[in-house]
């Protein structure tokens, strides 16, 4: 990759990481000690760029709003569901393990997918190898839940609906 292309792809990501770290420092040190915080942030950003080719993926603002609302309501429901099952005297668990072909493209979208699966009702991400996602389910229809989540994640990144890819 040419230096110029690298710079145009890495710079936005670098700024985002730096801004988040600065916010964290602000929260931790209450605006003091930038003489230490500043260089530390710079070092972390450089190290991150050196270790992995991060790229800023533009988010779809409305999609983000929809995703956050969906995530909060579903994780609340997921917590209630599993709490009900744990406290139920007969312990009703519909255990199944499945492999599902992920339709989202490689990159941040998949990371978000795998990261959120375990907090949504009845599903737990077990493994992701190439395109094959292993999901453990205890309730409902894991397959349908994953497909629905994939649509939301596609919406979050403003990607076209992934359903068409075979």
């Amino acid at each position, binding site marked *: 990759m040419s230096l110029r292309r690298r710079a145009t792809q890495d710079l936005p990501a670098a700024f985002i990481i730096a801004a988040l770290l600065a*916010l*964290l420092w602000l*929260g931790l040190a*209450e605006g003091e000690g930038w003489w230490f915080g500043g260089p530390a942030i710079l070092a972390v950003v450089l190290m991150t760029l050196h270790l992995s080719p991060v790229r800023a993926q533009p988010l779809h603002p409305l999609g983000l709003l929809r995703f956050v609302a969906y995530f909060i309501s579903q*994780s*609340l429901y*997921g*917590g*209630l*569901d*599993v*709490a009900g*099952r*744990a*406290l139920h005297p007969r*312990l009703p*668990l519909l*255990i199944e*393990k499945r492999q599902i072909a992920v339709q989202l493209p490689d990159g941040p979208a998949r990371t978000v997918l*795998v*990261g*959120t699966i*375990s*907090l949504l*009702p*009845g599903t*737990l*991400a*077990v*493994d992701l190898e190439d395109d094959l996602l*292993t999901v*453990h389910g*205890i309730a409902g229809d894991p397959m349908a839940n994953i497909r629905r989540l994939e649509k939301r994640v596609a919406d979050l990144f403003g990607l076209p609906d992934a359903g068409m890819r075979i």
Partner: protein
Amino acid sequence: MLTDWWTIALVTVGCAFFLAGTVGLLRFPDVHTRLHALTKADNVGLGLICLGLMIHDGTLPGILRLGFIWILAIFAATVSAFLIARWHESAGTED
């Protein structure tokens, strides 16, 4: 004060979720089902406690800090859950 009651209610319900998570950890039959209980129930519990404390705090920096802690905790839990689940899967241990 009314806000105090909100805090008390949210923290109490949050604690109940933690209790349910532990009950699941002890009662569920294997590693994967136990992971379901811990990740989901405990993070809802922590979220409710953070929300209750946000109401109690009432200042913008305080609220932001609590929100930040919750988001980071979710991140830590979901990454840990995935790693433990995969690690257990590849071990091929049957319980």
